[in-house]
C-alpha cells in the first residue's frame, strides 16, 4: 500500500513538472471556457455586457390575464436591456422565423391558457394543463436558455399562485365568507398578483422550481466550464495511461518490476496516480472558475462526489486506451481523438437536449454526458440525492471499463522494453 501511494505520488510530482501537460490540463480548458463564454454569452452575471438584446418572438393566443402578463413581463423596463421581443400572431410564422435564425426563441402562449390555469368558475383544476411552448434556436443555446429560465420562473410563480389561490379560496368558501360567484374574480386577482410579482424579481435569476432554496445566477460559463473541464479530463487520463507505456519504453517500469514491488502494486499505483491527477485537475478548474467567472456550482458535497465518480469513469477510458495501444504515441493519438469525440458527444459545445434522440443515447458512453448531467442538476440547486442517475451511470461505466482493461492488461507483459 505504501509503495502504491509512493508510485502515485511520484507521478503527481512528474505531471506537475510537465509544462506541456499542465497547459492541456489546466490552461486550455480555462481559456476555452473564457473564450467560448465570451463568444456565446455573458461574462459573469454581474456585468451588463455579455448577453443582451436577445431577440425573441412572442405569440400570445391567450385572451386572459396570464398571457398578457407574460407579454408585459417581456416588454417590461426591467427586461428591456436583456430581451428584444417582437409580437407575432401566428405560431407558424414564429417558428419559421426561428428556423431562419431571425431570433433566439419563440414563446407561444396557447389559447385559453389563463382559463386553463384559473378556471372561470370554481371547479376542479383542468386535468390537462396547457403548456407555454418555447421554440428554441439550437444555434443559441445559452440565450435560449435565458428565455426558458424566465418563462419557467413565470410559470412557477403562477403555479404557486394558483395552488395558493385555490387553498385560500377553498378555505374562504368553506368558511362561508365568499359566495361561489365571487370565486373566479378573486382567484384571477390572485393569479394576476402573483404573476406581476415576477416583475419585481431580479430579471435574470431563476428561482429553482420546487426542489430547493438554492439560488442560482444564470451564467453561460456555468455550462461551459464543467463541459471543458470534463473534456480536458479525458486528456489527463489518456496522458496518464500514456505514461504507463512510456515508463515501459524508458525502462523504469521494468526496473520497478525487478524491485521487491509486485506488479499489481505498480499498476494500481500508476492508475491511482492518474485518478488523483484527474481529481486535482477538476478541483483546480472548478475553484478557479468559481472565483473568476463567479459560477455557482451548487452543493459542494455533490460536486465532490460527482468529480470522484466522473474521474473514475474517465480513468477507466484512459486504461482501456492504454491496454489496447502498443506505444505511448498511440495512446496519445487515440486519447486526443477520444477527447474530441467525447467532447462533442458529451455536449461540451452544444447542449445534448438540442440533439436528436440517437445522439443522446450514444452520448451515454461518455463520462462527459453523465458528468454534465450531474453538474447541471447541482447547478440548478439539486443536492447529492438528486445525483443518483449520473453517479450510477459513471460508476457502472468505470467498473466495466476497468474490468475490461485489466483483462487485457493481464494478457500482456510490461517486462519487455
Amino acid at each position, binding site marked *: 500500500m505504501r509503495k502504491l501511494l509512493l508510485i502515485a505520488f*511520484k507521478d503527481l510530482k512528474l505531471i506537475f513538472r510537465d509544462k506541456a501537460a499542465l497547459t492541456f490540463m489546466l490552461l486550455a480548458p480555462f481559456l476555452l471556457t473564457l473564450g467560448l463564454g465570451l463568444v456565446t454569452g455573458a461574462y459573469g452575471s454581474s456585468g451588463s455586457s455579455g448577453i443582451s438584446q436577445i431577440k425573441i418572438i412572442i405569440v400570445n393566443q391567450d385572451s386572459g390575464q396570464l398571457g398578457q402578463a407574460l407579454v408585459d413581463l417581456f416588454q417590461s423596463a426591467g427586461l428591456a436591456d436583456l430581451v428584444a421581443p417582437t409580437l407575432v400572431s401566428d405560431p407558424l410564422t414564429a417558428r419559421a422565423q426561428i428556423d431562419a435564425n431571425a431570433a433566439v426563441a419563440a414563446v407561444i402562449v396557447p389559447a385559453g391558457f389563463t382559463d386553463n390555469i384559473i378556471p372561470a368558475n370554481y371547479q376542479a383544476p383542468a386535468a390537462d394543463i396547457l403548456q407555454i411552448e418555447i421554440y428554441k434556436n439550437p444555434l443559441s443555446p445559452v440565450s435560449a436558455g435565458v428565455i426558458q429560465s424566465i418563462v419557467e420562473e413565470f410559470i412557477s410563480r403562477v403555479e404557486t399562485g394558483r395552488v395558493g389561490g385555490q387553498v385560500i379560496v377553498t378555505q374562504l368558501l368553506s368558511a362561508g365568507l365568499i359566495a361561489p360567484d365571487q370565486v373566479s374574480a378573486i382567484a384571477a386577482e390572485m393569479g394576476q398578483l402573483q404573476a406581476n410579482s415576477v416583475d419585481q424579481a431580479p430579471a435574470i435569476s431563476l428561482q429553482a422550481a420546487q426542489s430547493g432554496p438554492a439560488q442560482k445566477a444564470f451564467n453561460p460559463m456555468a455550462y461551459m466550464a464543467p463541459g471543458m473541464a470534463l473534456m480536458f479530463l479525458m486528456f489527463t487520463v489518456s496522458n496518464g495511461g500514456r505514461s504507463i507505456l512510456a515508463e515501459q519504453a524508458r*525502462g523504469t517500469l*521494468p526496473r520497478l518490476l525487478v524491485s521487491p514491488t509486485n506488479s499489481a502494486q505498480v499498476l494500481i499505483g500508476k492508475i491511482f496516480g492518474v485518478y488523483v491527477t484527474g481529481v486535482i485537475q477538476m478541483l483546480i478548474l472548478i475553484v478557479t472558475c468559481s472565483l473568476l467567472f463567479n459560477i455557482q456550482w451548487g452543493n459542494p458535497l455533490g460536486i465532490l462526489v460527482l468529480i470522484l465518480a466522473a474521474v473514475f469513469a474517465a480513468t477507466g477510458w484512459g486504461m482501456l486506451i492504454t491496454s489496447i495501444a502498443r506505444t505511448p504515441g498511440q495512446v496519445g493519438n487515440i486519447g486526443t481523438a477520444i477527447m474530441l469525440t467525447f467532447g462533442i458527444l458529451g455536449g461540451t459545445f452544444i447542449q445534448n437536449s438540442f440533439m436528436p434522440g440517437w445522439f443522446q443515447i450514444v452520448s451515454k458512453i461518455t463520462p462527459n454526458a453523465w458528468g454534465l448531467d450531474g453538474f447541471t442538476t447541482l447547478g440548478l440547486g439539486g443536492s447529492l440525492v438528486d445525483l443518483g442517475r449520473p453517479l450510477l451511470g459513471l460508476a457502472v461505466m468505470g467498473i466495466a471499463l476497468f474490468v475490461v482493461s485489466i483483462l487485457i492488461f493481464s494478457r500482456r507483459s510490461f517486462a519487455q522494453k
Partner: protein
Amino acid sequence: MKAILEVKQLVKKYGDFTAVDGISFDIMEGEIFSLLGPNGAGKTTTISMLSTLYIPTSGEAVIGGHSVTKEPMAVRNLIGVVPQDLALYEDLTARENLAFWGQMYGLSGKTLNARIEQVLEQIGLVDKAKDRVKTYSGGMKRRVNIGVGLLHKPKLLFMDEPTVGIDPQSRRLILDSVKELNKQGMTVLYTTHYMEEAEELSDRVGIMDNGKLIALGTQAELTKQVGEMETLILHVGENDDPERLAVALRSLKMVRKADVTDHTVSVIVPEAEQALAPAVTRANELGIKIHSVDMREPNLEAVFLHLTGKALRD
C-alpha cells in the same frame, strides 16, 4: 566458497529465435564475474531472467537459495540491478530518483537519507544532486543509474554494460567503484563487450556468443585455451584489401589463424615478434601498406577470436 548464484541450462526463446541457449554457471559469494560477449550474445536476456523480469523458457536459476521463478520476491530483495539502458525519471533530481527507488526497495526515514548521501558520494554527484537528471551529461546519468542499484546494499549486483558510451573519466570512476564495492563484500555479475574491463575486474569470466556460453573460467584458464599463442594485429590502409593479406598470411607455417575485421588483420602465432618480419614482407609483395602493428600476449580477445573466428567488437 559458497555459490550465491547457480544457473542451470537456462534457455530463453523469442518465438523461434533462441536468445539464450542453455547456459549454466555458478557465481561464488564475493567474486566479480563477467559475462563477456559481442552485441546480441544474449547478455541482457540472461540478466533479465536472473533478475526475475523475464520468465525463462526452460532451465532454472537459484539466487541465495531462492528460485528466480518460484520465489521472485525473495530474489528481488537480494539483488540490485543496473540496467543497460538508463532507467531513471529525468524530470526528478538525482536525489529524488534515489529517494524514490530507495523506497521501492523498502528503505525509509533516516536509513534512506543516510544511504542517499553515501551513494551520492560514491557516484561523485553530491554537488549536482539537486539538479534534474535531464540536465546531466551521459556519464552522470549512467552514474545515477548505477547509484539506484546500490541503495539497498544488495548481496548480488547485476551490472549490464554500465560503461557503454561514456567518457573515460566516468568509466574510470565506475570501474573503481565496482572494485570498491566488491571489496566491501558485494558479489557482482558484470556484463561487457570490452575485453579490457573484463580483464581488469573479473575473478572469472564467461564468454558468450549467440546465446551460448562458449568458455568459462579464470583469465589464466581461458588464455590457456589459446595455448601459448600471441596475437599480431596489422592495421592496413583504407584502400587496401585486408582479406588478401589474410589469405596470404594463412599460408605461412607459423600462422594458426588469420582473421579480418574492418582494416585490421589479426594473426594468431606462437611468437608475435617472429611473425612480424614475414608478415610485413608479404604485405609488401601484395602492395598493401601497413599503418601500424600491435602485438598482444594471450588475452581474452584472443580467446574469443580463437573460439569463434571473429573479433569481439563489431
